[in-house]
């Protein structure tokens, strides 16, 4: 064991584990509470933001999107369109025998 190791080992004996003071636990909880308050506010804000986001998504999905959806240009088939165009002619035409 060299001299430095001896000094460092003696240091362990020279500085024993101190007894915690009576104010240790109350002081610790005071610090925890002090830091916890902003965290709680932030958590409440995050929760409110999440709820607001969910409501907005629901509103967009159920109200806005159906309203903004335009009717398709062609809602009927080609045959239906032809039939409508020539409805009068078909009525006047003699029946096929």
């Amino acid at each position, binding site marked *: 064991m060299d*001299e430095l190791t001896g000094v460092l080992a*003696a240091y362990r004996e*020279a500085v024993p*584990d*101190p007894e*915690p003071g009576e104010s240790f636990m109350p002081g610790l909880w005071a*610090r*925890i509470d002090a830091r916890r308050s902003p965290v709680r506010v932030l958590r409440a804000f995050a929760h409110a933001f999440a709820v607001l986001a969910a409501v907005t998504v629901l509103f967009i999905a159920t109200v806005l999107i159906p309203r903004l959806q335009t009717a398709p240009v062609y809602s009927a088939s080609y045959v239906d369109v032809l039939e409508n165009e020539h409805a009068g002619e078909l009525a006047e035409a003699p029946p096929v025998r």
Partner: protein
Amino acid sequence: MLVEFDVLEQARGGNEAAFNAIVRAYRKRILGTIARLINRPEDVEDVGQEVFLRLYFSLGQLRTPEVFEPWLYRLTVNAAYDYLRRQRRRHESRMSDLSEQQVTMADAAAGGKRSEDEEYRRRVRETVEALLGSVSPEDRILLTLKEVEGLSLRELEQVYHVSENTLKVRLFRARQRVMKAFDALAKTTGEVT
């Protein structure tokens, strides 16, 4: 382990009584380590509270209870490191920086005779403070954990999350730097303790 795994689990779940049990089980050991890491008795409790404060807010990140003790050591090391860096920036006048005459005057002002044992302890504390104060906080903490706290290389691996070889290299270099300060101190004082 000084606490049962289920106490840790309860504390992770936000149980304050379980957290208090952990603090009570470990505070003396942690305060002792801090006392030897920073060598400033008046600030030991403050740094100790900082360690347990960090523990409270990071307990949820603990993956398995098995790694709790190295993890607590890591929090202790980080808090001590932050403290030592702040102290360095402040450039406060310390007893070890004072001349021998100033120390004698301060002792006389403090009054009361010291016993031989107390005198020896004081000299050891001042010598180690002078030695470790001459190297970086990183070297100081690593050497203290290994040589003073007696942590094994395996335990240091878990604290620092580096390989054993890397640790050996770091320890060797830190020792070299402290040895240099040790030799210089021995030359100026004739003997060290």
